[in-house]
């Protein structure tokens, strides 16, 4: 059990042991980086095909099923197509920025994976302020999107970039605020510590994951919503908004640069999903005491996959919001609720009451503002309508 659990760690150290002693730290680092890039690169390829297949099934279609067995070589075909496509740079584009934008989006996103604990003892860097690093790195993608939209010198791109910036600034606030109660609970900014704080079980079967507390549940929901907006996922995919803005800030990109943007967006989604798993779903912890034989990285992967599925599911179901509604939703609903959640989380730790009572009180304290805010954020109008019939 332990061997399987630590198989990647021991493999890494075994390989590094072949190198001379002075080189070992460097080799260890390179191995972690190579591993991360290999795993999440193939994860990207797998997700594109699985997403299309799942979307297809949800829409009662087959999805791509022509290339290779069950269509699973489709990403390969897409990659070849993207690589061999002509790279078009508009005549009036700012060529330097147009070239730098996809890099500026993709590189920081790769960095964000460095602090995520994918399993027991499995994080590339153990950093004291890991979560701060994560958010700091994530904020760079806004500038990349702006660079892409502005440098294309296309009106649709520019509008898309403006939307993207407004959206990312707005949703970063609830994203961080939703995570703060977890930091309070763990008393640390380091992600492995946060996972460690969620170990153990209540009454020997309910895991002590944050998501099973009222503030954790609310925080999880807020975090997922804000994460969808941060990574431009439906129903917050306004910057691309293909029915309105052609492809938004991607309109003037083609070929491999477009593929890089695509990669960057998916990696951003993976990173933020991994963070959601770490913060709220107990990271690599097993969901029950008798399931601990399963390797920790397996549990991380399972939770990660489930969350990605939820994003795909929402994408198949929901139409997108309008920009003003999107911003109202962030500032008038998510941010107040996240702040209230912060208070409730503080209360959760300070109220001396038995568990069920505490749970109900805190849930009630969250539910009331939720209902109230949900009614007023979009100008409190009834959604149900009556219709008359003639003749």
């Amino acid at each position, binding site marked *: 059990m332990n061997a399987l659990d630590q198989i990647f760690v021991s493999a890494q150290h075994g390989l590094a042991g072949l190198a001379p002693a002075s080189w070992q730290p460097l080799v260890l680092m390179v191995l972690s980086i190579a591993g991360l890039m290999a795993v999440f690169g193939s994860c990207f390829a797998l997700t594109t095909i699985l997403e299309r297949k799942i979307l297809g099934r949800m*829409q009662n279609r087959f999805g791509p099923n022509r290339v290779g067995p069950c269509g699973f070589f489709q990403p390969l075909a897409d990659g070849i197509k993207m690589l061999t496509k002509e790279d078009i740079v508009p005549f009036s584009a700012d060529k330097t920025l147009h070239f730098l934008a996809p890099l500026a989006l993709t590189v920081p996103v790769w960095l964000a994976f460095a602090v995520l604990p994918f399993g027991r003892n499995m994080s590339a860097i153990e950093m004291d302020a890991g979560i701060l690093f994560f958010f700091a790195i994530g904020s760079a993608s806004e500038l990349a999107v702006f660079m892409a939209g502005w440098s294309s010198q296309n009106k649709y791109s520019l509008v898309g970039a403006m939307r993207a910036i407004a959206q990312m600034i707005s949703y970063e606030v609830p994203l961080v605020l939703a995570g703060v109660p977890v930091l309070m609970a763990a008393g640390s900014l380091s992600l492995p510590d946060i996972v460690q704080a969620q170990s153990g079980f209540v009454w020997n079967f309910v895991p002590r994951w944050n998501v099973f507390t009222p503030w954790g549940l609310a925080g999880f929901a807020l975090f997922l919503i804000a994460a969808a907006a941060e990574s431009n996922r439906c*129903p917050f995919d306004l910057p691309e*908004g293909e029915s*309105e803005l052609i492809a938004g800030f991607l309109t003037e990109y083609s070929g491999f640069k477009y593929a890089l943007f695509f990669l960057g967006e998916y990696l951003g989604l993976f990173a933020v999903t991994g963070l959601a798993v770490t913060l709220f779903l107990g990271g690599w912890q097993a969901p029950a005491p008798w399931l601990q034989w399963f390797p920790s990285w397996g549990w991380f992967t399972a939770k990660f996959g489930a969350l990605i599925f939820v994003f795909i599911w929402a994408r198949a179901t929901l139409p997108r*919001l*309008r920009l003003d509604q999107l911003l109202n939703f962030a500032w008038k609903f998510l941010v107040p609720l996240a702040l209230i959640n912060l208070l409730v989380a503080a209360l959760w730790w300070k109220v001396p009451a038995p568990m069920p009572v505490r749970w109900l009180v805190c849930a009630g304290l969250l539910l009331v503002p939720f209902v109230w805010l949900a009614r007023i954020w979009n100008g409190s109008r009834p*959604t149900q309508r009556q219709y008359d019939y003639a003749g």
Partner: protein
Amino acid sequence: MIAPPEIQSPVAAGSLNHDLLEVAMGPHHPSTHGVFRMNVVLDGETVVKLTPVFGYLHRNHEKIAEKNSYLASIPYTDRLDYICSMTNNWAYVLSVEKLTGLAVPERAEYIRVLVAELTRLFNHACLAGFLLQDMGALGTPMMYAFREREKILDLFESLTGSRMMCNYMRFGGCRCDFPEGWLEQAATVVAGFDSFLDHFEALLNGNEILCARCQGVGLLPAGLAVNAGVTGPGLRASGVNYDIRKVDQYGIYNRFNFRVPLGRRGDVFDRYMMRILEMRESVKILGQALHDIPAGPILDAKAKLRNLRPKPGEAYGRIESPKGELGFYLISDGGPAPYRYRVRPPSLVNLTVLEDMCLGHTIADVVIILGSIDIVLGEVDR
């Protein structure tokens, strides 16, 4: 020698330095429902001016029809509103029947009602799907609508030989009778449609995002709608009770028991709901028609298809097509082809109020307002 025009970047040179941004949405735009262009002037994302530009799909339909025989125009009408070929056929043959005074056998009238209401069903379902597609729902409702449409198109194929370009109705009746088992199959499809609608409404009606996007957007006041000649669900969403099936009672629509849903506000949501409610009513009509359909001939004995030369005169036949009032105005000079052939396309007339509905809304709303009008460019540009 003329110096080449100085190429300036559209963003830096002109538009951004002013407050307004001019964007040409279309003719290559994902959500203009064909080759349609809207020259939009934006203040931020708010529309301050919108000029529809159409004609990219002009095919000279009316002049071709003035050269061809009366019969040869029927396949061309299929291609007007290429989603609803059956109703186009009906409007055209109705006006020729008025011109020539032909009667239609009872069974043929029932068949016409059947196929027209089936057409209305899938047109409205697809419209709701397209609208949600414009709203960014990734085509899921559209795919569900297409799934049901396939079943109806299968019916059309076994009846007429073609799925979309049916070319089915003839002056004084219909081209051919049902193949064996068609009515039973149609009854199954119609019976399944109600549960499809239940699921469709569960997916969409209560959806908060849909409500937020549609309600209060693209208001069309009843007065403006009437003055501009808007017809169909768009007019009824504004609360005007005007359904040609009730007003003219063409065909045998007086025999069926159905209601006309009316909206109160006239926004995109009402227009969407009109489609849903009308589908429910169409299912009722279909049930009655399938139950009552009599046996008999399907083509009037006096009907003459080839070499038709109506007496000099004029006629205007109109029906309630899924998109509104579809009319054909014909003048005969006694020759083998109409002297004047004019289509009154509901899509085009409904489109004229686009700017009035869009002003003050954002660019994202323009797309769904256009979607809620339900245009088909084949009909707009003809």
